[in-house]
């Protein structure tokens, strides 16, 4: 295991402001969805990323549109960090035709392939092989790109974890496996379901570096990701980074969260809050000031508000689209009467 707590560098203000903005966007986006959902406006299952912002943002800070990411059922944060349009995201969650997937995918399937965001995924563990495949394309086409697989502590026990990482390792592919260990898979604790102490320990099975970082510390994630992305871009193969984090809300909207300890909850929602910590860091290192950050927060809030308005005022997809997009070059006539 490599050491991960030695701060090797500070960050320039531009990068820090970008990270702060993205984290703030995620937080406000999710808080807003939470509220809207509780009013019964939003359809379906919604899994919120609030609390885990530092992970998606700390990693995606190193990526560009040529790089791919795979995501999970808890995908809004990854989308935002990878640069997906907020209006298109919100409209997708509302099931509107202006959504990123024209309303056909919904929260669990938001994607923007043009931005290298290969989709939230309703299947736990679905991302491992997909990230490996994106890494294969990068290698075979020599694009210089990398692929990142975000996955949960629950997914770490799925067979695809083993298959995907082993393949990335033997083929030395530019893939970074980022564990978001928030302590629970639904209501099941990580410590119960997993026979390892840390997910990063399992990296040894594949002969790749495994690093544990405080996933509430955006700088720690940023630095670990930098090492892994550099490694990958240099053709040195895959890495695994385990980010210890926490989700502020329940597994999905409607979860009473009785399985969570009240102390841990308190602690994570306050002292350990990723955005507060990063804000502190920026102020300490003069990367911005209170005023600048407050202003940014206001702008972010406004953009989320605008996204809600955009979504609400958009139309639902029209009936004809029910049977389009099933095939590229074959008309799906269906068979129903």
């Amino acid at each position, binding site marked *: 295991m490599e050491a991960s707590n030695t701060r090797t560098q500070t960050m320039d203000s531009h990068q820090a402001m970008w990270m702060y903005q993205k984290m703030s966007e995620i937080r406000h986006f999710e808080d807003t969805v939470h509220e809207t959902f509780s009013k019964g406006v939003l359809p379906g299952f919604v899994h919120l990323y609030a609390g885990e912002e530092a992970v998606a943002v700390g990693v995606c800070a190193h990526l560009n549109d040529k790089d791919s990411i795979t995501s999970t059922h808890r995908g809004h944060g990854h989308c935002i960090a990878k640069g997906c349009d907020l209006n298109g995201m919100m409209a997708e969650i509302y099931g509107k035709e202006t*959504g990123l997937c024209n309303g056909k995918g919904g929260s669990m399937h938001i994607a923007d392939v043009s931005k290298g965001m290969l989709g939230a995924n309703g299947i736990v563990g679905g991302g491992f092989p997909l990230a490996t495949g994106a890494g294969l394309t990068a290698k075979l086409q020599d694009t210089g790109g990398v692929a990142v697989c975000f996955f949960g502590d629950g997914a770490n026990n799925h067979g695809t974890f083993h298959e995907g990482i082993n393949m990335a390792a033997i083929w030395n592919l530019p893939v970074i496996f980022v564990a978001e260990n928030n302590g629970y898979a*639904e209501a099941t604790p990580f410590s119960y379901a997993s026979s390892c102490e840390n997910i990063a320990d399992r990296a040894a099975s594949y002969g790749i570096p495994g690093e544990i970082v405080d996933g509430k510390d955006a700088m720690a994630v940023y630095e670990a990701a930098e090492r892994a992305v550099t490694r990958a871009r240099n053709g040195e193969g895959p890495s695994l980074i385990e980010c210890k984090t926490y989700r502020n809300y329940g597994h999905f909207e409607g979860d*009473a969260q009785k399985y969570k300890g009240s102390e841990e909850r308190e602690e994570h929602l306050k002292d350990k809050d990723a955005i507060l910590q990063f804000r502190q860091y920026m102020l300490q290192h003069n990367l911005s000031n209170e005023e600048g950050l407050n202003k940014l927060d206001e702008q972010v809030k406004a953009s989320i508000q605008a996204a809600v308005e955009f979504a609400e005022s958009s139309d639902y997809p029209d009936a004809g689209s*029910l049977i389009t997009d099933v095939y590229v070059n074959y008309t799906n006539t269906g068979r129903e009467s």
Partner: protein
Amino acid sequence: MGRTISFSDAINEALAETMRRDKNVILMGEDVAGGAAVDHLQDEEAWGGVMGVTQGLVQEFGRDRILDTPIAEAGYVGAAVSAAATGMRPVTELMFNDFIGSCLDEVMNQGAKLRYMFGGKAKVPLTIRTMHGAGFRAAAQHSQSLYGMFTAIPGLKTVVPSTPAEAKGLLIAAIEDDDLVVFFEDKTLYNMKGDVPEGYYTTDLGKADIKREGSDVTIVAIGKQVHTALEAAEQLAAKGIQAEIVDPRSLSPLDEDTILASVDKTNHLIVVDEATPRCNVATDIAAMVADKGFDSLDAPIKRITAPHSPVPFSPVLEDLYLPSADTIVRTVMELTGEDTAMTT
């Protein structure tokens, strides 16, 4: 009788009844209790499944018999197959039938084939409970109805209940059955209330139920679509057309006789199924009747199904995706138009 409980509670009762009678019955699945090894959690606060269907069972039966599993469908479904073959009678929960993609081998190549491959010298008394169905805004990977895929597999049985009382009786029968049974629960039916007898009883696998008698057209409908068909039947009755609604309840084995007898009476068949249209249960029943009931038929066999597409997320599209009473009425009218004109 007279006692009204939900579909979900009926299933819960079926599990409790069988677990009380046979200590080899255990329940395995993701969060079927929930919060395993969390000290401060009281049993009554445990999830009891993602929809709360198994809530409370852990209080009575404890965590040795209500086993939370990792997210490892191949692992725990495969373990359940072999636990069954070695003397247990497990009920395992595949949370959504869509997740069969992670454990098809354990079901198709191990569980369903073991008995045959071993020359009859083994049995697999395993029940797999699983959620299916669209209408919950759960999108493409959590809304499929995949009983056709399972019905195609020799060596396992498939059951799709449409009412709380039958859900209970069929589930008890499934658990007590010595074969692998896959039991489908429509997530949009869980809150449906109905009269459910107390205590232990079974409803035979392989027997269809006539949910409404009628003389003009036979409508075979699966699961929740039984209710759509009944709604359509009311509208049709108002137009003087009497539809007979047949609910197969188990798809494998299929009660061919009841379906054929009904078609013999009505001379018209429509199959209503919300699954996708190809190589599926609606085609299966249609083909069976086009062979064995051909001479009874006065008109083409119609199938009302979902279109050949994944389930869309957008509520407006998902509503269109599902069969509707209107479509059924229109189809029946087209099919029997002349006959009824003559009758009235």
